[in-house]
């Protein structure tokens, strides 16, 4: 997992609330056996609309999604996080996140920044005035801002998830930090324990 300290990228306004995981990535796209390639199903139902925000050229390289409240509700599928990441999103900003989505995001390295509803509105206003404008997210300082300084506010994230993202550690990375303990345990295992492959 990449370390996350600060990110500056094109903000994409998604002016909808209660975006559930089936809207992020419909179930029909879940048959894949990889963890990549889910960008084609991201917001699939809305992508047919030429006016949908992701179909507009200026948001093509969007990496900071600014969404309405209660983002990521519904099914627990981790694919929703993967789809956003596969598309190129590094940060999702919303006033409220569904718990499971927030947990999945932290584990996969997508920053779910929870802000006040007024901040979401201010960012939307900023992006209306500056289409294709960038947003700066500083995880160390826990702030979200715009380059022109018109929006400058803090966001919420729990300390543990913040630490993991700053260090670029996923669950496996954390466990591998105890590699010496695992090796010491393996050295003590009885010889009669079964193995599936014989040397």
């Amino acid at each position, binding site marked *: 997992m990449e370390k996350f300290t600060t990110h500056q990228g094109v903000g994409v306004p998604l002016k909808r609330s209660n975006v559930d995981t089936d809207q992020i990535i419909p179930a029909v796209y879940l048959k894949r*056996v990889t*963890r990549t390639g889910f960008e084609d199903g991201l917001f699939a139902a809305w992508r047919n609309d030429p006016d949908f925000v992701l179909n507009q050229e200026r948001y093509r390289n969007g990496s900071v999604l600014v969404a309405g409240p209660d983002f990521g509700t519904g099914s627990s599928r*981790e694919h929703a996080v993967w789809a956003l990441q596969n598309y190129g999103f590094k940060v999702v900003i919303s006033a409220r996140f569904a718990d499971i989505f927030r947990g999945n995001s932290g584990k996969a390295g997508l920053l779910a920044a929870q802000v006040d509803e007024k901040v979401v509105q201010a960012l939307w206003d900023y992006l209306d005035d500056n289409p294709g404008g960038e947003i700066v997210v500083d995880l160390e300082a826990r702030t979200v801002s715009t380059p022109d300084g018109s929006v400058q506010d803090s966001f919420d994230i729990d300390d543990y998830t913040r630490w993991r993202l700053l260090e670029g550690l996923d669950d496996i990375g954390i466990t591998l930090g105890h590699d010496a303990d695992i090796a010491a345990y393996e050295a003590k*295992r*009885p010889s*009669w324990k*079964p*193995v599936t492959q014989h040397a």
Partner: protein
Amino acid sequence: MGKTLAEKVWDEHVVRSNPGEPDLLYIDLHLIHEVTSPQAFDGLRLAGRKVRRPDLTLATEDHNVPTVDWDKPIADPVSRTQVETLRRNAEEFGVRLHPLGDVEQGIVHVVGPQLGLTQPGMTIVCGDSHTSTHGAFGSIAFGIGTSEVEHVLATQTLPQAKPRTMAVTVNGSLPEGVTAKDLILTLISRTGTGGGQGYIVEYRGQAIEELSMEARMTICNMSIEWGAKAGLIAPDQTTFDYIEGRPEAPKGAEWDAAVAHWRTLVTDDDAEFDEEIVLDAADVTPFVTWGTNPGQGCAAGRLGAGAGGLRRAERPGRRREGADLHGSRGRHPDARDQGRHRLHRLLHQRPDRGPARRRRRARGPQGRRRHPADGRARLGASAAAGRGGGPRRRVQGGRRGVARRGLLDVPRHEPRHPGAGGAQRVDLQPQLRGPSGQGRPHAPGVAAGGRRDRRTGHAVVARRPGAGHRDRRELRGPLTWRSSPPTRESASR
């Protein structure tokens, strides 16, 4: 204080323990299959990681594969992709695979025991909930998700919070014709599908000791239907006899060393469980289930009591084996002259219906309209009428109308004395019997703020507001539930 079997096995596998953090548990055997592993392998690939212990990993194709024509290309595209991906991954990461057509290919929970890879005192995981099957050998075995599959592949460990422990003690011998499945269904129907939630359950007692390994695997497998994290049974001579001589079982001096250790894997006399259930094996009878969850079951012999049906089979001298009860097309031998399927009656006829009803039914299937709601216990009028799902059906007269038309299996005339007529209510919805799991404030069967019957001392679930007499449910029979006072450990969890 002594340790329970589960605690012994757990403690033997703790790689690292830190207060406030889950224990890091070493995994002795990781079984994988084509459905829950592809993205775990892809995650390894993306992060540039390898499988830490391919020699403790075994793959088979068993979840989404055909059981016929397996020598031909798989027709279903999703299944084909999954199987091909598993084969590629096994090759790339050096994992032993038993593919379709291989003599050792089979149900992932059975391959381990048959090869002798499943042994007492192990930790076994697999991306499938019914991994608890391996608990029959005295191992801690549980199902995991795809992210955890990836974690085990990469580290051979898993961070796990220590579950609470429960003992289910079954005293005496199971009656003839009563199987392991009847026993676990009895447990589930009496305590609800969440009765085991949060626990590693140890099954013990004479009835358990008398079971074959296959029957023990059935019980441990269905611990999941009971909501438990895992189920296990202490290893004994039956276990050792099953394992000895299998391809991957220890041999010679290794075997002796292994058995010597396995014999220590029993719950100490002074060990304490967080929860304990005691059951009398003699009280367990053949079971039938219906509906949509495994808690919706009842004793086959008792259900028909009011109608004078199967009960006759229970009289001395006329007892039939459970296999006959459920046997050929559900037809009971005694029922042949009447030309009627007893199992069908069990599910669709109200036990308190009189002869008139039976005559009408005897005219044939046209005598009564069939409906998806038939036999669904304790539904409201709208649900029984199909509005809860399935085709719509209008029933005049609301809930009572539904019952009157025989669409609802609600016994209206309960015997006053539990056990007098041998009848058992069929309208139990175990999930309504109160919360389960951590901090259970009361025995199952007693709703929060519940009470006990003054005369019998049995738990009585409070009536739901506005509901009539038939909403009263009793937890009866010899099942007892003992809850030890919370220990310092369990209270802090």
